[in-house]
């Protein structure tokens, strides 16, 4: 993700070597997701997610605007993903790096394009008024896994949020305050969860690329789940898989990086499903309170 934020060559070697032996610096196993801590705010739509040292706060809000002209029957759902230097001095203010563009596109694909939020239900008066649901992701602290953490945050916050009741009679649109009428929950169609793998290649590049060809079983490359910042910096590429509990893949993105065997991708997808199941249950638990 980021440049190797000040890692010395020795440290780099130490970390990759131990990873090769299946040892991670924080004691996790290679396919273990960090513990996720989800805190709900007092106000609906505010969620604070901690994934190890990574911290992301998501704020969902709603306002009434005019729908897009080409989609008069749909509400608007926007996700704002600007990473500021508060998350780490290496993020520049106001100028998104290529990586940040990828992060924001990924989150958008995982949640918006997969249709997690029912946007048709946000329409008030077709072509004239609709809800604009906005999720502001505040990246607070970075230690890898921004995509995974913000996806959890957004999907939890969307479920936590509720919008005021609105009634339409003729031209008149009445918005009731939360005291007058019970606010309405948004309709969430499914719960997508992102799992990011960091790819490593312990051998020479040539072996990785040519290795599969000569029938050598041990291709060598391996993937670790939920990399920290240091691990992410050392990795040769990432693979993000978004799934929901219904065993649907919402999105896969492996944007370049180390070429990976098809079988390994399938293996990652299987692992991801296990993590998705666990996280979906955890989110449900948290929201029950």
């Amino acid at each position, binding site marked *: 993700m980021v440049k190797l934020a000040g890692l010395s060559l020795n440290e780099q070697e130490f970390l990759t070597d131990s990873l090769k032996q299946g040892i991670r610096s924080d004691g996790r196993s290679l396919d273990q997701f960090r513990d996720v801590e989800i805190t709900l705010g007092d106000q609906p739509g*505010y969620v604070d997610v901690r994934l190890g*040292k990574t911290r992301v706060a998501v704020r969902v809000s709603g306002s009434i605007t005019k729908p897009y002209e080409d989609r008069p029957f749909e509400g608007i759902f926007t996700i704002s993903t600007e990473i500021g*230097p508060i998350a780490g001095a290496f993020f520049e203010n106001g100028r998104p790096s290529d990586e940040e563009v990828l992060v924001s596109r990924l989150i958008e694909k995982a949640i918006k394009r997969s249709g997690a939020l029912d946007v048709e239900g946000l329409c008030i008066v077709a072509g004239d008024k609709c809800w604009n649901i906005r999720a502001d992701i505040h990246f607070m602290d970075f230690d890898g896994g921004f995509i995974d953490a913000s996806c959890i945050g957004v999907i939890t916050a969307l479920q936590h949020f509720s919008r005021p009741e609105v009634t339409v009679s003729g031209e008149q649109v009445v918005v009731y305050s939360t005291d007058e009428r019970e606010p309405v929950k948004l309709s969430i169609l499914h719960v997508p969860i992102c799992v990011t793998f960091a790819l490593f290649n312990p051998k020479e590049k040539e072996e990785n690329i040519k290795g599969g060809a000569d029938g050598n079983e041990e291709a060598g490359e391996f993937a670790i789940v939920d990399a920290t910042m240091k691990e992410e910096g050392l990795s040769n590429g990432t693979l993000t898989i978004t799934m929901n509990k219904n065993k649907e893949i919402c999105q896969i993105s492996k944007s370049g990086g180390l070429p990976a065997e098809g079988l390994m991708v399938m293996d990652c997808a299987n692992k991801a499903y296990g993590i998705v199941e666990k996280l979906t249950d955890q989110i449900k638990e948290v929201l029950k309170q």
Partner: protein
Amino acid sequence: MELDAKIGVLNNAGGSSEVSLNGIKVVCGINGPMEARPRQELPTTCYLEVIIRPAIGNPTVREKYMEDKIKNFLNSVIIGNLYPRQVIQVNLQILEKKNNNSSYTSDSDESAATEDVLLELNCCINSAFLALVDANISIYKAFNSNIFTYTHKGSLVKDGLSEAKSRHLVVYGIKNNKVDELLYGENVGRFSEKKLFMALERGEKESMILHSKLKELSVESVKQKFVYLS
């Protein structure tokens, strides 16, 4: 409403704090002093970069205005000549804002939000102080910010969120456990000169109370950081 604060909440930032006050929750992260880009470099002092992000939406002129105010104020407090050619970056992220049902805004009442610039400034300044302490950045004196409100009945309330005739933001510098001087003030509404002075006087007292609280917090954080002290 009472101030609720934590120090050292972020890992990547050099110093950080989280402050809840008057229903507003702010996280402040300070990076630096660090190398400046050529454009920012000042030969004799440090360049202060203040970035404020709102809870909802993109930063607008309102945030720029607040950034300017805080930057000017901090420039007078931080001992800049200790950090020549360097940058200190003060990031303020507003997380929650409770008072005006802000999760349901419609286009029309956005302008009403200018009213609580003072409340946000108040919270930001206190949070910036704690983060500066956490980041070990030298300052001339300690400071804290209080907000007072004259209600329509004419009584002076501390931290009033209620309907107000006028609001007064008062920042005092504190040196040697004594109120030293007024560093920054911002007043909104209609009030007489006398009332302003009354508010300032009250501010001096409250400032000491708040200071002892903030001091306790910062001493605690220093103890944690430098184990040998305890």
